């Protein structure tokens, strides 16, 4: 992480979503999972969207994912030194469709690509651990990378 962290809007953490937003405290990327049909569920729901089962448990995913798409945000919605910065949608290796919007970090902007293999890394603010993603390939990692 770079010394100066950019501004982030915090999510409203509730009993239902705390496993996702605070799992990073233990270094875990957590989702609900159906104990009957084993479907991973995101965002949270009271029932499994596949089998409608109610037996949902919190489980840790590997944190290994692939970049499905990305954009570099140039617009200074909030002042920050790191424009343009990459926003991405990544898909976890556990299940097709298990995905989340995130930021790619610790890499050069020129290495951002659809299909890039990434792994989760957490950034803490107050009571929230944001799941961000960095290159799985150590050779591509740039700790505290500046924008390309």
């Amino acid at each position, binding site marked *: 992480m770079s010394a100066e962290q950019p501004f982030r809007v915090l*999510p409203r953490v509730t009993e239902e979503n705390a496993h996702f937003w605070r799992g990073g405290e233990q270094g875990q990327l957590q989702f609900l999972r159906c104990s009957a049909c084993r479907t991973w569920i995101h965002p949270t729901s009271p029932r499994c969207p596949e089998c409608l089962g109610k037996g949902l448990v919190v489980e840790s995913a590997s944190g290994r994912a692939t970049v499905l798409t*990305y954009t570099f945000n140039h617009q200074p919605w909030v002042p920050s030194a790191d424009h343009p*910065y990459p926003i991405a949608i990544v898909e976890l290796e556990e299940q097709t*469709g298990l995905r989340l919007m995130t930021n790619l970090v610790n890499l050069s902007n020129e290495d951002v690509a659809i299909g890039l293999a990434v792994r989760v890394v957490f950034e803490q603010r107050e009571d929230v651990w944001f799941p961000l993603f960095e290159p799985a390939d150590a050779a591509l990692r740039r700790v505290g990378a500046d924008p390309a």
Partner: protein
Amino acid sequence: MNELRRKATVSGIGQSEIGRRLMRNPLDLTLDACVAAIEDAGLRREEIDGLSTYPGAMGPGGFSGAGISDVHDALRLPLRWFNGGPEHPGQLGSVIEACMAVACGLANHVLCFRSVWEATYQGKGKRAGLGLGGGESSGGGYRASGMMEYTLPFRAYSAVNWIALFAQRHFHEYGTTREQLAWIALNARRNAGKNPSAIYRDPMTLDDYLSARMISTPLCLFDCDVPADGATAFIVSRPERAADLRREPLFVESVGCALKGRPSWDQFDDLSTMATRDAGPALWEGTELGPGDVDVAELYDGFSFITLSWLESLGFCGKGEGGAFIEGGERIALDGSLPLNTHGGQLSAGRLHGYGFLHEACLQLWGEGGERQVPGDPQVAVAAAGGGPLAGCLLLTKG
């Protein structure tokens, strides 16, 4: 074939003054459009027995100038049916529901309206981006929830970021380029030059587009529509009640409001398209007409990529072929095979948020497009609105 075919008509349209930072009361703007539409249909206001709007009253922010109760009370309407809220199949979903109401006999004449005053609100320095909620996040204490929970915390503050993610995936899968996408913006500007009420009318070149500052790759400034103040209104009437009115009624031939994928900006199964994928084909399920019968297309361009997505989803070209379809801008010009966004779209004529497209479709079918009138007496028009998880469309015919 559904039961709605030719059971609703558009019998009148109205629009307020449109501009940047008009500094006018938003209900005042709304009523200008509503009263104009009632007069355009040749109706008396006591004959308006239905009222429908998107997204309904939302308080400050500029996103909605008036709700159902505001207009109901201001015009003292004797309503038999009304409907307003944000959870429609796109902005024009509120018109589609009015069509259903008259088709069912719940109302004879439904006044539909949409008003925005975002330019004035932004001019007061109160809205930096959709997700920043008028600056409340910077005051501490604000926490993202609902649809914003999984976007704002990742610094994706605006719909431009969310749409850019779809556009980039489309570029990746199909080789679509900025030089191709540019034609949505260039065509809109070309048409806006012939529309006296458009906001941006100066000519734009491909070089202007390519050298514009980037907002969220691959979308630049000219891929984003322009915030405006303005209101648009329609009268949707039962065909048997429209026959003797001032105007030749325009029949609603079909509507599309399907959404089969997940209703989400980031969880939709195919990231190279959007909810348009489901609403577009649904339009053709309700009619014997097809894409080849359309004489003019007014397709939402809150961001340019959305128009490309509608073109593909409505079957004007194949999936992934949108870039090649619009490239060069000849096919979509006023004298092309599919005249597109003939008033300049939201990109150049101003963000009237969906309703402007249906307004323009009606004008074109009535032959009142002025300098931008599509030649050849167009008979069939499609109007579509919405991007991301929002999508709804209507097919109109003359006679």
